[in-house]
């Protein structure tokens, strides 16, 4: 099954409410995906700096050591903010690769969930309401956010198997469905230099889009191409630094409903996810067409 919620704000005045609105939307989709949950929030960024969202199974130990190491290295100019099993590390963008290399060599138990100027991704195994509460999603602000509640079908119930998946800077993807050609596509992408952390089908879709965008396509074009190359059931909701995209496979079995007002664009697996949004009674509400790319950019 799985549940998806997404909110792309057009009205900057609503940005402080983003986390609160998304957590309410996510809460309506718990029974669609009770085994794990995750969300990507596009928050504030600082010119010239990048954020890494890190996750650890032993956060007290790993993040404690990392904090001390970063504090010692004044030249690294890094800030770290620990949130439960996750931590967001902000570094000057030109030092990003060095920090990534240091994490890989010195902290093998730390996983990178996302990197980018604005994106932060939090995901864990557990009932979605509990996951949202644990990371205090309701207090987060930003321009757009995507959430997912997972009922696993293709691969194990683990933190890394939860959505969203991020395979490129400020990119993320969530999925309701299952892909049937992900193994062959994964092999092709690996040959072309892409790397994978899981056996999960959704990670292949995320990686595919990143690969297409590396070839120079924008998100809309990459999604169009994905309709040709990805086989199976899918509703994808995709975020980039400034964009928000939606696409359904041609059979369109998986449920989807969207709403748009002057203030926002919203996606829900069901209308229940949208029912609490401000001004929903006057919103344009529609079911996205099969095999049609919807894409908003600020």
């Amino acid at each position, binding site marked *: 099954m799985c549940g998806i919620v997404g909110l792309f704000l057009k009205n900057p005045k609503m940005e402080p409410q983003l986390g609160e609105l998304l957590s309410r939307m996510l809460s*309506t989709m718990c029974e669609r995906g009770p085994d794990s949950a995750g969300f990507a929030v596009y928050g504030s960024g600082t010119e010239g700096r990048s954020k890494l969202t890190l996750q650890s199974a032993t956060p007290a130990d790993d993040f404690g050591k990392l904090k001390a190491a970063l504090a010692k290295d004044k030249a690294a100019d890094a800030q770290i903010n620990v949130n439960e099993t996750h931590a967001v590390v902000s570094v000057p963008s030109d030092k990003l690769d060095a920090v990534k290399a240091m994490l890989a060599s010195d902290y093998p138990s730390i996983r990178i969930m996302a990197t980018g100027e604005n994106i932060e991704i939090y995901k864990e195994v557990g009932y979605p309401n509990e996951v949202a509460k644990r990371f205090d999603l309701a207090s987060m602000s930003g321009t757009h956010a995507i959430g997912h509640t997972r009922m696993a079908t293709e691969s194990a119930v683990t933190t890394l198997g939860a959505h969203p998946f991020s395979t490129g800077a400020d990119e993320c993807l969530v999925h309701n469905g299952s892909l049937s050609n992900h193994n062959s596509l994964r092999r092709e992408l690996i040959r072309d230099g892409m790397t994978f952390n899981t056996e999960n089908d959704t990670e292949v879709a995320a990686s595919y889009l990143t690969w297409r965008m590396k070839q120079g396509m924008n998100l809309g074009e990459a999604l169009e191409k994905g309709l040709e190359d990805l086989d199976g059931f899918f509703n994808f909701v995709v975020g980039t630094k400034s964009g928000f995209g939606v696409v359904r496979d041609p*059979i*369109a*079995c998986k*449920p989807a*409903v969207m709403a748009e007002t002057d203030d926002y664009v919203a996606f829900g697996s*069901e*209308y*229940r*996810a*949208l*029912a*609490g949004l401000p001004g929903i009674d006057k919103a344009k*509400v*529609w*079911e996205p067409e*099969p095999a049609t790319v919807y894409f908003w950019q600020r």
Partner: protein
Amino acid sequence: MRTFDLAQSPLRELNEELHRQTEGSNESKWEVINPRGAHAIAVGLDAPISVDVRGSVGYYCAGMNKKATVTVHGSAGPGVAENMMSGRVVIKGDASQYAGATGRGGLLVIEGNASSRCGISMKGIDIVVKGNIGHMSAFMAQSGHLVVLGDAGDALGDSIYEAKLFVRGNVKSLGADCIEKEMRPEHEEALTKLLADAGIKDAKASEFRRYGSARKLYNFNIDNADAY
């Protein structure tokens, strides 16, 4: 009229109350407020009562309906009026996929658009859609009527049996074994009655085309044995 507020009381209570109603019930008019996309609202009714739902509903609203009139003043999620037996279900907004699926009788009116698989495997239900319908509608449709004032999506009537399909707008493509058929006087008569029953005054039966089964998939054809 009894008003039931789903923001105050649970759905199960509503459906239990509605199931308690019988022929000749004094409480024949019901209103449901704050549905907020909830699933299975007014499912399994079996009495000539009317239920007005103020707002949009989720999965399977008015499923298995018998005798009752259910009106949704909003849009409906997947499987509205699924397996309806008799009575009347009206959706003022749009309906999501497989509206009226497997329905055996009664009338389903969708005033907006219906999405994919509308009337899939219908077995006697009449469905009237004022807007458009999505792909794979009337798949394996066995009997009853599907009337569409707008356009139909891909693969209309794929593997259809004896349901009769009437479309006023364009049909994107016909499914396997579905063909356009002659509109004879008895079809115009049936269609005119359906339009009147659905309260539609701005459409004439003569503006529609009829589609149905070519009856070539009915029997096993030995020439196709290699395909299995």
